């Protein structure tokens, strides 16, 4: 399996995809900030704010199934944290409000990621004068996380194909060993990448 499923839709073609990344980034951050600023007494404003992302999603042609899938993946974490509100008196309404507000922000960010290639966001960061070392780190991370995920899955499969008893303590040791080896491979790859950068004139 290849790990490229993680950002498959960010390079589609639609009016939204063609917008400059900076515009989309600012719009998404503004929307999230506005949503965060809404007090519970003004809950109706959430409905108003949720209109733009829904329209954008429709125009962008990113499949609804993909958006919904990512929401479903992330909501449990949000619900788990928000559920603490249910422990306190009159927490039910606060819980629902928080959930709605967070879901709106979540949808907005998923939409941003789904319509904007990460390297375009990096260009924006570079223009915003984010330190070069951080942008380089982000660029290399984005480039190689797919490679490393594939590598860890191959290692896991290789281990599994030779594992005949299934005990929890053992599987922990095996997985932790895979993590250790993954780091070693990553650091060796970093050496080779440095060589490749030098070979093309990096000084």
């Amino acid at each position: 399996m290849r790990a490229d499923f993680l950002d498959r839709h960010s390079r589609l073609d639609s009016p939204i995809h063609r917008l400059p990344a900076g515009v989309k980034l600012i719009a998404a951050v503004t929307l999230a900030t506005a949503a965060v600023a809404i007090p519970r007494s003004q809950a109706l404003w959430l409905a108003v704010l949720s209109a733009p992302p829904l329209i954008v999603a429709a125009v962008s042609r990113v499949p609804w199934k993909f958006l919904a899938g990512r929401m479903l993946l992330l909501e449990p974490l949000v619900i788990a944290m928000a559920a603490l509100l249910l422990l306190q008196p009159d927490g039910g309404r606060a819980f629902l409000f928080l959930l709605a507000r967070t879901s709106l922000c979540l949808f907005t960010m998923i939409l941003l990621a789904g319509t904007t290639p990460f390297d375009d966001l990096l260009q924006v960061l570079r223009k915003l004068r984010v330190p070069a070392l951080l942008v380089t780190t982000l660029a290399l991370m984005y480039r190689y996380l797919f490679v490393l995920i594939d590598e860890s899955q191959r290692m896991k499969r290789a281990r599994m194909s030779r594992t005949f008893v299934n005990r929890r303590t053992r599987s922990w040791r095996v997985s932790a060993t895979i993590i250790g080896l993954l780091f070693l491979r990553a650091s060796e790859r970093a050496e080779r990448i440095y060589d490749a950068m030098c070979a093309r004139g990096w000084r």
Partner: protein
Amino acid sequence: MHIPDGFLDAKTAAATGALAIAGLGAALRQARLRLPARRVPLLGLSAAFVFAAQMINFPVVGGTSGHLIGGVLTAALLGPGAAVIVISAVLIVQAFLFADGGITALGGNVFNMALIGAVGGWAVYHLLSLAIKGLPGRLLAALLAGWTGTVLASIACAGELATSGTIDAASVFPTMIGVHMVIGIGEGLITALALAAIARVRPELLGLSGHEFPVAPVPSQPSAPTCPPNAFRRAVAREPVGSLVVFGLLISLGLAWFVAPFACPWPDGLEKVAETLGFGQKEAEHRAVPAPAPDYKMPGIRSEGVAASVAGTAGTILVFGLAWGLAGVLVHKSTRRRPPSDPPRENPL
């Protein structure tokens, strides 16, 4: 522990954002000045590694599973400054690419996991591995540091949620900390087991000389042996004192800001005993020397919350200073020097 959007109010988001930018800025500045060019790609690869490692699941009980957070592991391998950059990069990519962790809460998440979790955990790791030598010491240190880092981060996280007024302190603190005291066990175990696996192949990455294990000779790949023993560690893990002071101060400040105000409603164990036995009154009468900031409240400051914050800040800075002095005595001088092997360079990537 990724805080989503909507859980932090504006002032907390701004405060954590400022702390995170200061911490990350200090780490980046230090790396720009001292990190050899050869190690620059390692930061990005380590970030990708942490991300990939977080996707490996560990079965817990009845179908649930947990995963590594990786702050202490990164800090143990690369040093605290590099770990701040690496974990921050992971959190930034998770927020922008996968909407995991909110964009307005990014500062909070960086502060909790990169600064408190990784650097705080690293402090525990470093001090313990100074106390107990050799691989067993490293692994024990990693176990405890993984746990401590996770729990500390959850305390800060709970403090931010409570400061924001999102969730009552009375429910968020015990639940958050309780859950992470359990999660921390997993984090500590995985960190130690992963370090053990690394030590079997490349003991020098842990600062060990390699006598602990019989090691097979390194295969003669062009890239692997270009790194002479210990150079790796010398190059990345020696932490200049300046950035450690900055990290320590930021952590102290953050904890004073978000956690200290909630520390006062919970009486100390001793105070509680005194209270229930009715000694409270007496003790106050008999106190010969008045404490400078009784009960974490500064004299002359009206608002209780602000007073507690100010007192907490002063106290943590004091404690930090003491700890710093102590660490200075413990850390042997010879471990501090490190001339960079390459001149620093700009990265045009």
